């Protein structure tokens, strides 16, 4: 199960054209794989192309080169996402999401099976909708029959999964705190039962103690639901704690990929070394065993 590849990114490039005759290579021939049930971390400073990769994977940007191949799971589960006409397509189990034709053919399935959580939860939740509507909306769009009776019950179930209780259902995003809003975004993404969850700096704008809560939640949910998880962050310590494997991005290039333990014990690329050295680490000691206050 663990060695089966879910997402294969091959020589992905993306260029921006901020002005005439000006070209910025945001992502330059990046290749990596995400296996099923794995947490893959991407780290790098701002401007290194982390978010661009996430956007390419989610088909928000059309990459200027390379392939992103998404391997779909068993056919039984996918049946609901196809018309009868597309029986032949159903058999295909790898989809290049960068190919517009192929993307269009599998659009519904892809949109459901890949979910993203953004950094700024206040701008990714519709301020005019209640939390209940926000979580139920993707299910409505995808015509997913609610397993738990009604969409409202479904919304409440997923909110509970994300560590919130039903009392927020009738509230608006502006009434919630940052940590709570991020939990709503997580609930909304998980309600679609994704195979791939992409989180673009989900904890960067939260407080230290809330960050710990959200990281625990990610780990627990990942264990429970077994989705693959692409975790993008600039906080190396969070990545070390969460991820199985880590890729280090530097100016659009992937300079190092390694299992997270190896990467932190023995960073090879000079950039990884500087990055590891610049984390402000407080050396601290909690009280000794047997100490009283």
């Amino acid at each position, binding site marked *: 199960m663990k060695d089966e590849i879910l997402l294969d990114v091959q020589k992905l490039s993306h260029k921006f054209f901020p002005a005439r005759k000006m070209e910025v290579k945001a992502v330059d021939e990046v290749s990596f794989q995400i296996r099923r049930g794995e947490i893959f971390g991407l780290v790098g400073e701002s401007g290194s192309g982390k978010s661009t990769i996430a956007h390419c994977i989610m088909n928000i940007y059309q990459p200027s080169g390379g392939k992103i191949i998404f391997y779909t799971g068993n056919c039984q589960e996918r049946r609901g996402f196809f018309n009868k006409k597309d029986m032949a397509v159903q058999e295909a189990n790898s989809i290049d999401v960068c190919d517009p034709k192929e993307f269009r053919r599998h659009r519904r399935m892809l949109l459901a099976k890949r979910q993203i959580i953004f950094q700024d939860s206040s701008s990714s939740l519709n301020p005019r909708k209640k939390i209940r509507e926000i979580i139920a909306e993707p299910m409505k769009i995808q015509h997913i029959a609610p397993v738990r009776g009604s969409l409202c019950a479904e919304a409440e179930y997923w909110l509970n999964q994300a560590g919130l209780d039903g009392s927020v259902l009738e509230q608006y995003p502006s009434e919630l705190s940052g940590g709570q809003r991020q939990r709503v975004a997580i609930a909304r993404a998980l309600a679609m039962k994704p195979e791939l969850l992409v989180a673009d700096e989900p904890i960067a704008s939260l407080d230290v103690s809330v960050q710990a809560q959200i990281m625990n939640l990610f780990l627990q949910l990942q264990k429970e639901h077994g989705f693959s998880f692409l975790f993008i962050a600039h906080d190396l310590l969070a990545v070390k*704690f969460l991820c199985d494997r880590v890729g280090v991005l530097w100016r659009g290039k992937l300079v190092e990929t390694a299992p997270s333990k190896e990467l932190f014990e023995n960073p090879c690329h000079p950039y990884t070394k500087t990055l590891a050295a610049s984390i402000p680490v407080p050396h601290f000691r909690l009280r000794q065993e047997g100490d009283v*206050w």
Partner: protein
Amino acid sequence: MSELLEVKDLSVSFDTPQGEAQAVRDVSFSLKSGEVLAVVGESGCGKSVLCKTVMKLLPPSAKIKSGSILVNGTDIIGYQERDMCKLRGKLFSMVFQDPMASLNPSIPVGKQVAEAVKIHQKGLSKKEIYKRAEELMRLTGIACPEEHMKWYPHQFSGGMRQRTVMAIALAGNPKIVFADEPTTALDVAVQAQILDMFKKLQKKLGMAVVFVTHDLGVAARIADRIAVMYAGKIVETGTAEEIFYDARHPYTLGLLRSLPMYAEPKGELYTIPGMPPSPLSLPKGDAFACRNEYALKIDYEEEPPMFCISDTHYAATWLLDKRAPKLPAPYR
């Protein structure tokens, strides 16, 4: 007097449509010249309000309820805007979190630094002003300032913008610099550079810095002394060593334990249960009691005073009282 700044029993509250929000409650601290004090706490605990109160930059809805702010022994609590103008920039200045919001996007940065120089040092010729501005920008680590002075803020990177704001803050040779989360918007590598710059300048110019942050790692890197704030109160204060190696308040311990650095990968991080209380309706007794695993009965009745642990180390928790039961402290 060696105390440059002394704040005593300061309370600040905001008038909101929902009622009175107590942002800062009975805060006392002091600052010696040439010292770095880090104020650490979660968002909404009143760290920024504390800085802005000393600078008198609060909105009209805020009210200073009690307390005194002594600068070199003079109380400035009753100062009007006119008197404060003379102090700002010369005695203390401030660096904010988002440099793009503090810089004017339509004026070259060199001119903005020069403007600050012009205000603080009267009687200089235009040439001298620009020379001084260039000097300030070089001081804060901007490479070839004579070239970069002509640039606009949007052409600068986040780190360079923060350096520019720092140059402006230093224009009046302040004795105290308030830095309100200056590195939050930056990524780790740049953050480390900016922190090193702060430390270097602080030593070179011998100024005192009040560094507001929510990141204990940042505080460890820069601070001599640390004050931990929770729900508008300073709950523990001590030197950096005392806070990191001998924390006494359960909240400080909770913050330290929730850091991922020494946690077992894929294990479970410690989290402080519950949410911080709203400043509109603070509970009776210790505001931290309902989240505290070690809460005693008295925590729900009466607020704990500051208990002295050493000359520099104080913590506000009833657990330090002589009559408290001897509970085992968390350890790793």
